[in-house]
């Protein structure tokens, strides 16, 4: 009599399909996954702690390195959070520029997502075409800020420098041409029978479960919940822009794919509206903190256990003595920054709510009972980047 035993294998951290250094311990019964345990932390760099040791303007470049395929969105999320904390309002032109940048980033992120997701599932051609198109967006970044990946372009209270006519022209050209590129991707995979077999009915998570697991962004919207921070709590210029939030209904990998493909088109329309409406004026608020923001002295935090040991002295009124959670919609979901401030120009505690971290935690739920091959599709569909997950 042969004994039946579950086999546990490591998937990752060096597996190319895990999108970074994610390690999944899979317990297998034949081809079926019985249990899946994600292990994260291989890329931990202590971003939160580093942020606590730097003033608000100096911590901004750290946020580039969270989700390195959509660094501009992270920057904007951070700037919006600090602006809310300091009570600064960015000028209208800066808000529009940021919206353009955020949407370009959304396109760039979804391009990387479709490229890697399709490559994992076996469609190599999409990868090549989409990388070609991403280059275009990186060029646009370089045009405005001189960097292609770690941009540090927004700034607390606005953006660092104005956009020029050359950028506007290239951007118009991009939004004119890009819809054709989306069609190319769709020609390759949208109705392809292999793609359909690998994605339809795979990785199902119901709307209620998705909410309970804290999913956000297209991963949630694929389950039919129309929650989008851009609509729910508008920031930058989103309240003046007309756009739709695409939702799926079958809660599977294919619907999440459709959601993101529709977001491409929505982003194009948002960029177009922003470029058309772009107001004139300065791009930096006059009360924006300078780069060399004075640190100031910390104040006593009443009722806080740490409060007793901090030297208490009311020094500056510039930075409010406050806690704040601020969320923005980055391409992967809801990126939140939570600051506890002790009145200095440094956060006493900075907490980053990274969508990838939350999404990685849903993998056991998605994978249990599925086949090994579908684990790959599930990792792709939740769109995680481990730089952000491990922070």
């Amino acid at each position: 009599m042969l004994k039946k035993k579950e086999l546990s294998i490591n998937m990752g951290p060096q597996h190319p399909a895990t999108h970074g250094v994610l390690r999944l311990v899979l317990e297998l019964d034949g081809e079926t996954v019985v249990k899946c345990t994600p292990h994260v932390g291989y890329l931990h760099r202590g971003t939160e702690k580093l942020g606590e040791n730097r003033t608000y303007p100096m911590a901004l470049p750290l946020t580039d390195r969270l989700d390195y395929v959509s660094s501009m969105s992270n920057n904007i999320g951070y700037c919006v959070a600090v602006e809310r904390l300091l009570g600064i309002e960015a000028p209208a032109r800066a808000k529009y520029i940021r919206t353009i940048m955020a949407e370009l980033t959304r396109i760039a992120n979804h391009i990387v997502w479709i490229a890697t997701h399709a490559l994992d599932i076996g469609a190599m051609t999409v990868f090549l075409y989409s990388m070609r198109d991403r280059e275009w967006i990186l060029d646009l970044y370089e045009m405005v800020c001189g960097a292609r990946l770690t941009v540090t372009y927004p700034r607390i209270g606005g953006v660092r420098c104005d956009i020029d006519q050359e950028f506007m022209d290239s951007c118009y050209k991009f939004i004119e041409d890009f819809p054709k590129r989306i069609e190319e991707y769709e020609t390759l995979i949208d109705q392809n029978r292999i793609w359909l077999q690998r994605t339809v009915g795979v990785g199902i998570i119901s709307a209620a479960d998705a909410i309970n697991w804290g999913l956000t962004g297209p991963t949630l919207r694929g389950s039919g919940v129309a929650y989008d921070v851009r609509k729910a709590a508008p920031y930058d210029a989103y309240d003046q822009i007309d756009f739709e939030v695409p939702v799926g209904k079958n809660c599977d990998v294919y619907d999440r794919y459709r959601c993101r493909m529709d977001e491409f088109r929505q982003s194009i329309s948002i960029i177009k509206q922003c470029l058309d409406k772009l107001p004139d004026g300065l791009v930096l608020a006059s009360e924006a903190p300078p780069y060399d923001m004075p640190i100031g002295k910390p104040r006593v935090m009443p009722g806080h256990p740490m409060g007793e040991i901090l030297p208490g002295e009311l020094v500056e009124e510039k930075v409010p003595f406050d806690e704040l959670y601020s969320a923005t919609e980055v391409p992967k979901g809801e990126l939140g920054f939570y600051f506890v401030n002790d009145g200095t120009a440094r956060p006493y505690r900075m907490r980053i709510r990274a969508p990838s971290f939350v999404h990685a935690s849903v993998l056991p739920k998605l994978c249990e009972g599925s086949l090994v091959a579908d684990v790959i599709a599930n990792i792709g569909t939740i769109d995680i980047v481990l730089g952000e997950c491990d922070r």
Partner: protein
Amino acid sequence: MTVKQLIDKVFLTEILKGMALTFKMMLSKPVTIQYPDEKRKIYPGFRGKHAFVRDAKTGRQKCIMCMKCVNICPSQCISLKKGRDENNKPFLERYDIEALRCIYCGYCVEVCPVCALVLTEDFGYCSYTKDAIFFDKDKMLKNWDEFVAKLSGDVYWNKFWRPDGVDIAKMPKSKREQAPVPIRPTAAVPSDTVPEKKPVNPAEKPPEPAAEVEEKPEEKKEVV
């Protein structure tokens, strides 16, 4: 199943469409840039290798040792040492950027009140030793010379020195007075007459007599 769906299923329509697309791509122009032979266009303001601006009038860097860049650098990779010469005048004794730690944020370029620093458009610098990517003040000037040698035009202006759309009134006075840097000093005036004949711009640092005179002969050689 409709008739169309049946036809699509039997004749593999979607796969044929995909193949037609890839075949079409095969005939189009390749987009790949053959990197070391071909170079892509770099846009102005690219944040690459560090350099000190060589002031056309004094032939030296313009740093006034205000420590702003040292304090602002998020990765804390700049160090500066202020020395005193025999007349008790301060001069820049050491200025080091550990470029391997630099994250190319460009903050140092933006805060410098006299626009002494620049992140040039050179990006392909790598080496087998750490020392080659550790920039001291002489190397920073050398980087500048190498950079301007590749430029066309007579003046250079970095867009982060005084970013567009930012209120100029809030910048320090010395920054407001900065003008594009001439990068072809020899084309306009013979270089040996430059330090004496030209009036010194009050916004910039007056030339310091000591410490760095020995840099000049080397500079003439390279600029020509």
